[in-house]
């Protein structure tokens, strides 16, 4: 079985929008936003618009978007919707979805992860404010990275909230590079890094003028860890994290091809197809040069 990444994969993805985490499952926000981003990156603008409009229809009056039409909270995928809307604006040169972007950005900037006094047990700076998965909980790497990407794309890269979240993500990198969900050293022991959050963190930290040494170590970690057996979403985020820093693994297409065949044979849903398509895009789909060009 051979799969042409740029044809078979994208065709399958088009059929699955709006889509869910599993094939045939309830359409949900994150997979649909990622699918729209992937379709836009591959020039399938009409279908990307379908995803973007579906997301706009899910938006609450306060600008937020819940995890699915049946679950209006938590609203951590709101940043991904902003990214998609900005991506379509950038590709089409229009101001489409501006009415959705503005309230979503306002909502995002009003959300603050919960802080606490620094204590003896954890090493990370618990006073920094980023974004949390659910309201009134602590800030973690992945939601913070998603909102940093979104706010940069929306022209808010210099907003103090974005700057603080960039510091937060940098602070959560492990001493030897890489990161996990967002703990570093607990009770004196450095925790384990994982590929997927490291890839996303590297995406959020791309284009930053100031880099802590752990960024280079994290990129090295990704290069070391990625291989043909890396599971699908980790592989895709790992490759995207490297691509954000202009590093491409020579075996990238071979690995993606293998993951694609495996995923399709397992009947995966929109979520993984979208990640595969994003990682297979010729140009890095989250480039600020590309997304922020129209931002006011």
């Amino acid at each position: 079985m051979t799969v042409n990444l740029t044809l078979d994969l994208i065709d399958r993805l088009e059929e699955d929008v709006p889509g869910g985490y599993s094939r045939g499952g309830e359409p949900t926000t994150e997979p649909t936003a990622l699918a729209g981003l992937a379709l836009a990156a591959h020039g399938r603008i009409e279908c990307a618009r379908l995803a973007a409009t579906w997301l706009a229809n899910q938006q609450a009056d306060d600008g937020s978007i819940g995890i699915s039409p049946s679950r209006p909270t938590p609203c951590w995928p709101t940043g991904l919707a902003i990214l998609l809307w900005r991506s379509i604006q950038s590709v089409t040169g229009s101001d489409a979805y501006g009415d959705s972007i503005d309230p979503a950005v306002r909502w995002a900037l009003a959300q603050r992860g919960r802080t606490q006094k620094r204590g003896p047990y954890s090493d990370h700076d618990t006073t920094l404010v980023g974004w949390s998965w659910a309201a009134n909980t602590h800030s973690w790497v992945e939601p913070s990275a998603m909102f940093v990407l979104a706010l940069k794309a929306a022209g808010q890269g210099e907003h103090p909230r974005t700057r603080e979240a960039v510091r937060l993500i940098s602070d959560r990198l492990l001493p030897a590079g890489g990161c996990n969900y967002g703990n570093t050293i607990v009770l004196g022991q450095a925790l384990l890094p994982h590929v997927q959050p490291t890839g996303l963190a590297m995406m959020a930290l791309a284009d930053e003028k100031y880099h802590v040494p752990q960024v280079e170590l994290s990129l090295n970690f990704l290069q070391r860890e990625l291989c043909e057996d890396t599971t699908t979403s980790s592989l895709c985020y790992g490759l995207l994290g490297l691509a954000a820093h202009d590093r491409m693994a020579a075996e990238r297409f071979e690995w993606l091809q293998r993951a694609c065949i495996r995923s399709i044979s397992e009947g995966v849903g929109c979520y993984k197809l979208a990640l595969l398509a994003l990682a297979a895009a010729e140009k890095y789909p989250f480039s600020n040069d590309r997304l922020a060009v129209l931002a006011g």
Partner: protein
Amino acid sequence: MNSTPQNHCEQPKLDRRALLIGSGVAVTGLAGAAWISNAWQPRAKVFVARHQHYDGRLADTIRDGLLATGIEPNVFRGRRVVLKPNMVEPSRKISHMTTHPAVVVAAVEVFKNWGAAVSVGEAPGHVRDTEMALVESGVADAVKDARTQFADLNYEPVVWRPNRGGRSNLDGFWFPRSIAEADFVVSMPKLKTHHWMGLTATMKNLYGVLPGLVYGWPKNVLHHAGIPQTVYDINASLPQLIGIVDGIDCMEGDGPILGSRKAMGLIIVGTNLPAIDATVARIIGLAPQRVPYLALADGQLGPINDSRIEQMGERWRDVVSPFKILDQPHLKRMRSEESGALVT
């Protein structure tokens, strides 16, 4: 006395002797009142097997253990059973962190042979890539070998269930559909120390049924609501529970992720999770009443007092081997009188 999962806390009947003694409470005062109170505490059976190996006849051990604790096989015919191993943050470099796939395969065999529709479900708490968690833990192969389904509890549609425990301020829980619709949930933890809770066994393992999509990675909503309280509430709000502990290769020291391997060769089985966890706490050298979530559960969700737990198979005293714990005050407070080494 029937101790099927429908009746997993045995309530003792007061016999004539108890009533006679009870009638003397007014005379004997508080000591008598305490005796009566204790007599009304629930009872439970816990089965402990030793000399177990991952390449041994684990299905026989699990089946015999469940039968010994009063399980009636016919209650599973046509019922939905979800097995919940521990795959919090798997790494094949630290295989003693997660439930061994051989134990999962064995449990699937037991419940399938009893006529149940069996699936394996987990919502890994620290990683979003569930496929990675499945592969790294070896559970992916186990699911394939056992010809059963895996339910990715992090991303399934969710169903609201009220909080039947009431110890935290949460009104209820969003359970994944597989869990909400299950007839039985089987908690299958790896026996490990836990650097906050003392140990992680059958009750704490059930944090892993709640979806990250709603509760986050980590499930920080629960942490902010209180870990012991939410452990209690989740256990109180789930369908009928059974516990099977992988105590063969365990983790001591800085569990639940970075601790050291400790070979114990144990399988521990039962239908009352507080009683199981109290038993394994004793085995690893912790005092159950000093483990916060067990203190909360005591007498409410099940017994933790040794006198209320009927030990089947091996006696726990014969397999005690204190686990190293971190040199932290909150952990040292949980130590039982039999001291064990600290990891500093």
